[in-house]
């Protein structure tokens, strides 16, 4: 254990804090579900990238900052943004899931073409995984792609495709080898969303907004080189992406960011001059969550160290999504309670404008449940934790695709 900061680390911390103090007015508000990044978000992203506070370890040739891996640098930056409640940049599926997947198994050409625009927030990705008949049982995907004259020709339907209505690209899991067994018949394709034959129908969620979509494919033609790894490797690639999705969804820095926002609300004097933090019951609720967030943050530091040393954290990594999404919802639950009846006024603004703070909290309070379900629901996570993490036997299988 060595958490001492070197001179360089201290200098970096001061530099990040100074950066935040100087530029915080330019930052978009964090939270509130997913929207296409607007100009404010894109400009903030560009500033973070050029300052090395985003994509810090992504090689320069792919559009990142190119700094060597240093766990504490990453932690210092994340911590400074969380504590100040300032947006740490865009975290969408392209950035947090596709980019690390391409960096891990993509071709040189794919990395050069997609990583830069994705981390800049210019190329928005959606995830073509779930289908009406294969949600938790992802490998049962029926959407198929047959090869014809140098193209994959895709037919089928995906569901729960968040961001599909404004995405530029989709990473798609589909069946290219119908004669092979279930898991061996899948491929992972990169599909431009403006390809003819793709129809996106918005799916209105409980937040009142259309964050998800049904996506239909009718003879959608994609060049055969738009594949990650090879034909039949789709399940392997999808699992790499899912690994990163689980880490994204349980992100400890997001939890810290939320906690700090709630603490600030509770420390603010109310109209009668009193503070919620002075009330023992409210304070204890906040303190309980602080303890949980601390555990999540230190756990994350442990995982980062493992990652830097090339050690597989095993169980430690598998719990992150389930642990983090449940904790996130407990945090937003406290936030909406703190807002109380005055916070019930709810007018989501759609894609065009920023939501007011109370509406944003209520969107997150509901959206968090979507995150508990999406990316492998909590029950699927518990299967993974139980089977891969603890070595418990699988449920006996019934039938095959």
């Amino acid at each position, binding site marked *: 254990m*060595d958490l001492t900061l070197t001179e360089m680390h201290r200098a970096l911390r001061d530099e990040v804090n100074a950066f935040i103090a100087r530029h915080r007015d330019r930052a978009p508000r964090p939270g509130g579900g997913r929207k296409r990044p607007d100009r404010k978000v894109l400009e903030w992203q560009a500033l973070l990238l050029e300052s090395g506070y985003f994509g810090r370890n992504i090689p320069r040739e792919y559009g990142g900052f190119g700094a060597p891996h240093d766990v504490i640098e990453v932690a210092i930056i994340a911590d400074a943004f969380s504590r100040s409640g300032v947006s740490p940049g865009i975290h969408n599926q392209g950035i947090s899931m596709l980019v690390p997947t391409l960096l891990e198994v993509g071709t040189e050409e794919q990395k050069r073409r997609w990583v830069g625009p994705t981390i800049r927030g210019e190329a928005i990705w959606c995830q073509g995984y779930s289908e009406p008949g294969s949600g938790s049982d992802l490998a049962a995907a029926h959407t198929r792609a047959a090869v014809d004259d140098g193209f994959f020709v895709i037919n089928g339907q995906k569901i729960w495709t968040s961001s599909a209505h404004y995405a530029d690209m989709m990473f798609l899991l589909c069946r290219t080898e119908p004669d092979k067994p279930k898991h061996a018949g899948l491929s992972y394709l990169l599909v431009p969303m403006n390809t003819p034959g793709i129809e996106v129908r918005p799916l209105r969620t409980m937040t009142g907004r259309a964050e998800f979509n049904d996506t239909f494919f009718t003879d959608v033609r994609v060049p055969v080189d738009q594949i990650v790894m090879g034909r039949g490797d789709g399940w392997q690639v999808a699992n790499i992406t899912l690994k990163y999705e689980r880490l994204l969804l349980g992100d400890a820095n997001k939890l810290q960011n939320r906690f700090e926002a709630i603490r600030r609300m509770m420390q603010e004097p109310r109209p009668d001059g009193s503070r919620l933090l002075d009330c023992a019951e409210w304070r*204890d609720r906040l303190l309980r969550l602080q303890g949980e967030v601390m555990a999540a943050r230190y756990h994350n530091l*442990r995982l980062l160290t493992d990652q830097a040393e090339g050690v597989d954290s095993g169980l430690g990594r598998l719990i992150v999504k389930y642990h983090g999404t449940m904790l996130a919802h407990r945090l937003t639950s406290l936030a909406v309670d703190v807002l109380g009846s005055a916070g019930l006024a709810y007018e989501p603004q759609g894609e065009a404008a920023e939501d007011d703070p109370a509406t944003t909290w209520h969107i997150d309070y509901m959206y968090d449940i979507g995150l508990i379900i999406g990316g492998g629901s909590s*029950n699927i996570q518990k299967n993974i934790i139980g089977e891969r993490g603890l070595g418990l036997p699988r*449920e006996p299988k019934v039938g095959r695709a």
Partner: protein
Amino acid sequence: MRFGLTEDQKLFDHSLRGFLSARLPLDVLRRLAEPGNGFDAGLWKGLGELGLQAMLVPEEYGGAGLGLLDAALVAEALGFHAAPTPFAASQVMALRAFQAAADDVQRRIWIPRIAAGEMRIGVGLGGMSGQTGRAALRFQGGRLSGAVDGLLDGGGATHFLVYLADGRAALLDADATGITATVRRSVDRTRPLVDLDLAETPAVELLEASNAPLQVAARVRDAGRVMLAADMLGAAQAMLDRAVAYAKERVQFGRVIGSFQGVKYMCADMATMLEPCRAMVWYAAYAQDAILEEAAIAANHAKAHLAEVTREVARLATEVHGGMGFTDLLGLHFQFKRITFDRQVLGTSERCRHDAAVAQGWIGA
């Protein structure tokens, strides 16, 4: 920067756990636990040979000069095996009290004796700990009178270290005049509660060399809280491991019960709750030595959070074992009770969270 254990720490942990599992099979543990005084001379000697008693003692006094993270690994291993032995108070809290509040002469006399394993020191923090029970001491003319309840590591103690309300600490000989030490078996038969009644008992030493005695006392308390958090972590990990092993072997309805989601999910829930606690304990222990501005917050949250999580793990792990878990046969209850004990001693979760709020300036003391 790295967040994790060194190879040395892993090796030491491995040999300690090897020793404890050979030394404390269930039948032996039962026998040692029955008297309920939390002390066995043979076990104490064996642990001394492994270096436990001198581990935190600075090298100049004949110790290994290790830090609180090393001590937390020991506490975790002791909790895992429900070892009936003094450690948290005797070897950690008392030593740190001497280091922080004893003068040079006192240190030179006593610290080498702690390192040699000659002293076992029960510690009583009284009201400062948040413990329930009596805590009223008068100190006059070098003598102590009054009562303090619930000393930690008081079974088999050669000495007691009791805190006065002003943060000074008095070292008492266990055989001194006017001392009545009542050793009560606790629900956790591996550690007793010791209540002291004192009538004009002479203090061997008064630790008053610090100019901020209340802060020093709070740091001693926080070190103890980290040790108890580590102890709970170990005990809960043992229960989880056993629940998982049982779920892999017990067959019902023609299947091992671990293949049923109902059981599997209980195990997954336990692992999900408990795994981040490990990093939290490491951090809290490390902070006591290396990140002083966060030491109090981390220690208090570690004790509070571990108590919440391990209470849940203790229930679920017992439940996975079905009726067997509720019997005395499996001995699973030793760890259950260990967790029960640790939660109440040195302040409950509510008290620790309160102290965390004070430590970060949310409210006044």
